């Protein structure tokens, strides 16, 4: 972190531990409601309909000579059974996703907070006294963080095998590589918590300024973030171009019905894309469409958080919004919480939608499935990483607070978040609608 900062008691970090506890409690309650209570009811309904369907199928098979009405009736029962299965999957997957996300959120903010709260008072992490308001100094946290990621990724394949081994005794794991990955995770956690520790007292004074072309006079952090976004555009362009390369040659049902010459001898149903399964029905298109709106609304709420933080003359509005956001500090925090909630909704609906697609036989085993899950999965991962960063923003907004001097944190994170929205603007029509 650059610049100098206000004095912040280390004890304030215990609020992060408390925040982790609150998130975990909400997650467990939602899991118990959606993933257990409602999902179990849906499971019973599904099993009942499945039994009824098989029973009817056997009866009609014994009867022989099926009429059109019989086939229609059986088809109707089959669709009811499939709908009940998907409904069960919706609640079960949503519940489990919320539980896993809340555990990750709570661990991330809780452990980070605990590590910082345990530091001796007066330690500011960067070994620098805050006497000179304008003196610049760097941070070692980013390089330690990068090293942690390197270790974690080196052991990642075995980390995944080890996770499977925990669930299945027939799978054996390479404990050496698991250890390497775990050391990587611990290093990441230490680096992140130290990064937070350095940033929390930052009051906006002493932001490092670039002194050479092409970003001369600009904030170094902002320029760095744009260069990072530039590299991210390339990553998503790779997914998109490989998808287009294949998509333009696939004889989908749409292409066949549209009379594409190269597809005239190809029977319908030969190539099935995710959009074939999603775009023709409101219920299947709904998760993707809601996610699109959720991301756009979350982009707006983070803009509102930044605008409120920068507005020195902010006044609470009257009525319900005034009660919800009585002070500028509370308003910034609540807008960030809204962004966090909308981003979390995106992840939950994404996994619900994936579970539906897998249940319908659209998995990673095909080229169409592979490119779909990799592109949308990479985007989902970016959303999830953004949410982890946002946890800290919520914590800072709740404790030290953001104002017109130190709102850069929200602004720079907002750039990343808007980029994630921008990537979805391309992914959604390409993979869901086209």
């Amino acid at each position: 972190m650059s610049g100098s900062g206000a004095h912040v008691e280390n004890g304030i970090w215990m609020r992060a531990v408390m925040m982790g506890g609150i998130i975990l409690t909400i997650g467990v309650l939602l899991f118990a409601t959606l993933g257990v209570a409602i999902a179990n009811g849906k499971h019973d309904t599904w099993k009942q309909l499945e039994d009824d369907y098989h029973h009817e199928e056997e009866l009609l098979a014994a009867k022989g000579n099926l009429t059109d009405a019989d086939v229609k009736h059986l088809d109707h029962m089959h669709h009811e059974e499939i709908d009940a299965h998907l409904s069960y999957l919706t609640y079960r997957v949503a519940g489990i996703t919320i539980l896993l996300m809340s555990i990750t959120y709570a661990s991330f903010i809780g452990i980070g907070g605990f590590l910082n709260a345990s530091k001796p008072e007066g330690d500011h992490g960067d070994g620098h006294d805050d006497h000179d308001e304008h003196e610049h100094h760097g941070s070692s946290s980013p390089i330690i963080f990068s090293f942690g990621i390197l270790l974690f990724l080196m052991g990642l394949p075995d980390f995944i095998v080890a996770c499977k081994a925990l669930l299945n005794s027939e799978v054996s794991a390479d404990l050496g590589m698991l250890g390497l990955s775990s050391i990587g995770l611990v290093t990441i956690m230490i680096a992140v918590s130290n990064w937070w520790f350095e940033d929390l007292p930052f009051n906006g004074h002493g932001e490092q300024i670039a002194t050479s072309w092409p970003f001369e006079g600009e904030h170094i952090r902002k320029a760095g973030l744009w260069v990072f976004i530039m590299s991210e555009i390339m990553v998503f362009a790779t997914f998109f171009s490989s998808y287009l390369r294949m998509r333009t040659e696939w004889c989908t049902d749409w292409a066949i019905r549209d009379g594409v010459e190269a597809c005239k001898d190809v029977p319908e149903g030969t190539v099935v894309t995710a959009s074939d399964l999603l775009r023709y029905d409101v219920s299947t298109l709904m998760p993707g469409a809601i996610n699109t709106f959720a991301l756009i609304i979350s982009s707006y709420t983070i803009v509102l958080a930044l605008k409120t933080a920068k507005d020195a003359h902010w006044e609470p509005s009257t009525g319900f919004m005034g009660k919800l956001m009585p002070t500028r500090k509370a308003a910034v925090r609540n807008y960030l919480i809204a962004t966090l909630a909308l981003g979390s909704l995106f992840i939950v609906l994404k996994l619900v939608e994936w579970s539906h697609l897998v249940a319908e036989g659209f998995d990673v085993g095909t080229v169409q499935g592979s490119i779909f899950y990799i592109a949308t999965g990479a985007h989902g991962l970016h959303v999830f990483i953004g949410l982890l960063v946002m946890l800290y923003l919520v914590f800072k907004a709740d404790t030290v607070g953001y104002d017109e001097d130190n709102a850069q944190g929200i602004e720079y994170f907002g750039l990343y978040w808007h980029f994630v929205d921008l990537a979805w603007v391309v992914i959604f029509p390409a993979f869901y609608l086209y």
Partner: protein
Amino acid sequence: MGEHVEFMGKDIYFWNFIVLMFFTLFEVGAVFFEVIPGTDIEITKMSVWLILIVVGIIKGYGIAAFFMHLRDDPRIYTRTALFPVLFVLLMLWGIGLSNPAGVTDLPSWCTPNWDYAETR
């Protein structure tokens, strides 16, 4: 920043948000309906393509120009954001060349006395 520009008492961010929401509804509707509601006019594959691309450009501009402040920030940020577009275009060009249809379907003015697709 854009909050200083107001229209009907609301800042530019609000109107940008409304425009993004409207065009998202529009693109979902364009794909979902097979004919224009209330008419017998079919929505063809080509028109869906066109709608998706135009709406994508409008939404992308709205997010980048207003939410990401590229419209008000120094031009160096816009240039930084657009720099990878060069590589993206190169990639798409490469796709065009590697796709058989991309070669055989090129217009004649683009392939004078050239029978690459037949002879390779």
